[in-house]
């Protein structure tokens, strides 16, 4: 549907993507692959599935939506490409299931860029 925005001209929003103002959507529908921020990270969160109660506080507290709840497997999934290593999830986790591990302990997980971004 074509929408008139004052000062911005007309934008085309597909019918299935239309939401009312202030709506809450369940998850990001797509990822912005031109802005990979994984190389901002010094440490990464490592989860312990035994301690994790799936309370979703990491999902709520992550500024970059890097925790996703996988309903089929009943598991939290970490998105490596966009986590900046801010450690908010580690501080907020009520059961201590998340710990910070140095990024250099892992061989992969960081998108290697030519320029800072």
């Amino acid at each position, binding site marked *: 549907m074509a929408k008139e925005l004052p000062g911005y001209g007309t934008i085309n929003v597909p019918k299935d993507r239309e939401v009312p103002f202030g709506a809450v959507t369940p998850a990001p529908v797509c990822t912005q692959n031109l802005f990979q921020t994984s190389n901002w990270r010094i440490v990464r969160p490592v989860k312990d599935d035994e301690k994790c109660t799936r309370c979703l506080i990491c999902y709520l507290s992550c500024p970059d939506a890097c925790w996703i709840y996988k309903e089929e497997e009943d598991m939290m999934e970490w998105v490596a490409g966009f986590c900046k290593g*801010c450690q908010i999830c580690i501080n907020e986790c009520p059961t201590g299931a998340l710990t910070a591990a140095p990024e250099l302990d892992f061989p992969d997980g960081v998108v290697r*860029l030519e320029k800072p971004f």
Partner: protein
Amino acid sequence: MAKVHEITVWARGVIMDKEGRDVINIFAKAAQMDGKHAQAFDNYEDLPDRVLVTVRKYVRLSDEEIEHKYVYTNDQPEVVVIAEATIVKGIDVLLGMKKGGTLIINTNRSIDSMLKFIPNADLLSTIATVDADGITGVRTVDFSGSEGGVDESGIGKGIAAPIVGAIAKVTGMIKKEHLAKIVSDVSGMERGYKEVKIKKLG
């Protein structure tokens, strides 16, 4: 025009901005005390006011006056200094380097484990590591920001001191005696000079 030596320093935004800036300023000052011509530029291009984002700082060194004043980025760095080791994993830090360059990393890990993260390491002739975090025991001196107008802690405190000591030993472009007159943390600089581990590659 005489050869211009280009040195690029990589650091993390905000938490290591001052440290990276100190390295280039100390380097350029020490070179000028030696009678060389030097330019030091804090970066402008990479939006440095974000926590943890990778930022670059540049120094140029020449025996004669440096003529290209208005281009400040180093397109062909000869020496690359990494103030925080994780940067080698996420960025092609050797981009533009000609064969026979030097890489200095602030880490307590072994040189071979660092080389695993650098796919184009064949460009290097020398790689060196210095454990500046371990020597000074502090990673961030203050958050005085990119502007530097309120920097009261003095030049060359924290990890900047061991890193410049290591640069002096590895490259030989600057002299330790001049560094001792500039940096606040002289003992840290001396330890960086002594404890740097150097490996020559092919």
